[in-house]
Structures are given as structure tokens and as C-alpha cells.
């Protein structure tokens, strides 16, 4: 239930009489917004649109197929966060691969892959490294630990992506009209709020770093609406209990030591330069693509799957022709319906009647 103060914030937003489209680029925000029913509580003039904030969802089909191909290799154990296992690749999923004899282990932390490698010295363990700036430092530290311990049967399929370049790409595509962004709280806990100054400088748009409770998000929306009303475009922090402008220097250092910036392929957005991470030369021994050199041919997404358009905010999940009929959380055809953070899964669970 929303508190008395929350109702007062809602009233204040309504009184401002602002018309605006705000986008969130964090899967946890998407879920929190859906679960709290915020969209219905806000005045009609304020629209919330989900962007490319779910790490599993933005992973390209060819990367998913690569992960599946790895799990089919004899002597390979694929270690992964749970959200990846049900994502349909072109022909099959990791879960189906496991059912037919492939070795797929769901882990909670990348550190678990170290233990797995040590426990299975005769097998090759590959960790599926998906995620944005929040997750990349953890993987970086795990790679450093693996190197320090001399673990030779562990490698990483790096699919890490960076959020600011995807937002710039989205704005340059001009498919959706946006008046500001809810900025991802834990990405900013790592990189700080400064990497988002381009919103103001290049596009004249405001952004507010938001926490994950419905109250946090509402307050951040209040701050965005206030900026819009006053004609300001600043990068502000609502989630001050966690986020500093400069981010977390220790986490940034680990990322910098292990990774360099490279191009990445995003579902829905295509190949974006400087939007991904690759292992530096000194850690390239840990790159699963070097260790296995598999060739993936003819990766295809499910016909009519709207996941790409949903990730760009062009299509609302409910507008996808497959939503809730052909594509459901029990039988998903695209990652946006699989991942707990996916826009389609959130809409299916919490917003279906709208």
C-alpha cells in the first residue's frame, strides 16, 4: 500500500499539470513500476515507457546461440544466472539442451563458477557474462581471481553491455519522443551519475537516478516532472543513500583493469560502437570465444516476436501480436517474456487487464 506521503507526492505531480513521456532503462524499475501499479496512479498526461534495461533481453540471438552451442560441447559445463536458461535460441534453449544431456549449472554469483571449475578439474567451465555496468565489475574481479589462482579450466563468454551508449543510440533513432529518463540506481552506484550528462548536453533532456522502491520511483518522477515544468534539464540523484556522482572507484578500477570498450550487438538496437566490453589482451586466455572458436550460423529470432521493438519503447508489450496468446511466461518465444526483468513478463504478470 502506498503511504500518506506517497499520495501527497501523487497529488503534487497531478497539480503540476505536466505532459511528458519518461523512460526507465532498468529491468528492476520496470518490474517495480508494474507491480506497484504506478502507471494507473499517475495522471494520464504522464506516460512511462520501458527501454533496453533488461540484460538478458538485450542479448543478441547469436550470443544466445553461442551459449547453447557451448553447452552442447562435450566436457563443457555452462555456468549461468538463472534468467538465461529459458531464453529461446534459434533452435533450442539452454534448458532444453540440459534436458538432452548438456551440462548447464545455474549459479547465484560469478564466484560460484570458480568453485565449479575447481570441483571439476577435468571439465571446462564457461560462465555466461551478461549484464550492464552493475555486473561487469563482479565478473572483472572473478576473472582476476581466476588468473591469480591459475585456474585454467574456466573461461567467460563476455556479453556485457553499457547503458549510456544504448540510450544515445535510442535518442538518435528518434522513434520515440521522450522528455526524460529514470536512471538505473545500481548501474549508477558503480559508474556514478556523470556518464549521463550527455543527456543534458547533447539532447537537452533531464535524468534522475532512482532507487527501486515504488516510493523511490515516484519521487524521481516528481523530480523529473518538476524539471520539465521549470524547463530545466539536469542529471539529479534521488537514490542518494546509495549513489555518488563519481560512482564506486574500486568497482570502476576492476572493470578498467580487466575490460576495454568495444562494439556490441543488442537485440532491437543492432550493433552499437563502444557499447560493450571485451577482455583486455592480458586476460584474453579467459575469453571463451578464443578457447572454443565456435561458428554460429543463421541465428534468427522468432518471426513476429516484438521483443526488439519493445526494447526500443516503440511497442508496448500488450501491442505485440503474440503477447499473452502465442507468447506467455510458460511458453515464451522471446527473452522479454522470459526474464523476470523483461517488460513483457512484467506486463503479463501485473498489467494484463489494461
Amino acid at each position: 500500500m502506498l503511504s500518506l506521503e506517497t499520495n501527497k507526492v501523487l497529488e503534487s505531480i497531478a497539480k503540476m499539470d505536466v505532459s511528458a513521456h519518461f523512460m526507465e532503462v532498468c529491468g528492476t524499475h520496470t518490474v517495480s513500476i508494474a507491480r506497484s501499479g504506478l502507471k494507473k496512479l499517475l495522471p494520464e498526461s504522464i506516460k512511462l515507457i520501458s527501454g533496453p534495461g533488461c540484460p538478458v533481453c538485450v542479448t543478441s540471438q547469436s550470443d544466445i546461440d553461442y551459449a547453447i552451442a557451448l553447452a552442447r560441447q562435450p566436457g563443457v559445463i555452462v555456468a549461468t544466472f538463472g534468467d538465461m536458461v529459458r531464453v529461446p535460441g534459434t533452435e533450442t534453449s539452454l534448458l532444453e539442451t540440459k534436458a538432452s544431456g548438456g551440462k548447464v549449472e545455474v549459479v547465484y554469483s560469478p564466484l560460484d563458477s570458480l568453485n565449479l571449475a575447481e570441483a571439476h578439474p577435468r571439465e571446462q567451465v564457461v560462465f555466461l557474462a551478461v549484464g550492464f555496468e552493475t555486473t561487469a565489475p563482479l565478473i572483472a574481479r572473478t576473472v582476476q581471481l581466476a588468473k591469480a589462482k591459475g585456474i585454467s579450466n574456466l573461461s567467460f563468454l563476455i556479453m556485457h553491455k553499457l547503458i549510456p551508449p544504448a540510450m544515445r543510440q535510442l535518442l538518435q533513432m528518434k522513434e520515440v519522443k521522450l522528455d526524460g529518463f529514470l536512471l538505473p540506481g545500481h548501474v549508477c552506484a558503480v559508474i556514478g551519475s556523470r556518464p549521463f550528462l550527455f543527456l543534458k548536453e547533447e539532447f537537452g533532456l533531464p535524468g534522475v537516478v532512482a532507487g527501486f522502491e515504488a516510493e523511490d520511483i515516484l519521487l524521481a518522477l516528481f523530480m523529473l516532472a518538476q524539471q520539465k515544468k521549470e524547463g530545466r534539464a539536469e542529471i539529479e540523484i534521488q537514490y542518494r543513500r546509495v549513489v555518488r556522482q563519481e560512482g564506486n572507484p574500486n568497482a570502476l578500477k576492476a572493470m578498467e583493469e580487466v575490460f576495454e570498450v568495444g562494439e556490441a550487438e543488442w537485440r532491437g538496437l543492432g550493433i552499437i560502437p563502444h557499447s560493450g566490453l571485451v577482455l583486455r589482451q592480458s586476460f584474453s586466455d579467459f575469453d571463451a570465444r578464443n578457447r572454443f572458436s565456435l561458428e554460429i550460423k543463421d541465428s534468427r529470432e522468432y518471426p513476429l516476436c516484438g521483443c526488439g521493438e519493445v526494447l526500443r519503447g516503440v511497442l508496448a508489450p500488450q501491442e505485440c501480436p503474440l503477447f499473452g496468446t502465442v507468447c506467455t511466461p510458460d511458453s515464451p518465444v522471446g527473452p522479454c517474456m522470459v526474464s523476470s526483468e523483461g517488460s513483457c513478463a512484467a506486463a503479463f504478470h501485473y498489467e494484463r487487464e489494461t
Partner: protein
Amino acid sequence: MCLGVPVKIVEIEGQDALVESGGLRQKIRLDFVPEAQIGDYVIVHAGFAIALLEKEEALETLELLKDADVIP
């Protein structure tokens, strides 16, 4: 999935720590918040503390509401 719930550090041994939330204990790494002390609250992501909670900012919601003249 980002968990927004801060957890309390109850034990520290080198880079490893034990945190507690709702009676459940979990082992985490402190590589990115080496300044953390027992009794501090941290945000944990996939087994690593990624941020130390600022105690003085914990009441920010209330303060911001006051700043905005939403509540007296």
C-alpha cells in the same frame, strides 16, 4: 535483478563478510567497499557488496518531500 534491500554486515574476514537480512545470513565479498565495517549496511549484487549505505541519507525521502513542500 537488482535487489534494493540493504543488508547488514555481521562478520568480516579479509575480503569476505557475512551479511544478515530478515534472519537469513549470506556470505559476500567486500572487494568494492573495503572501508565497510561490522554494523554497516551494504547493497549486494550477485555475491558482491557494490555500495555502502550512507546513514545520513537514509531519511532522504522525507527530506526531499519536505524540500518540495509536499509535507510540512
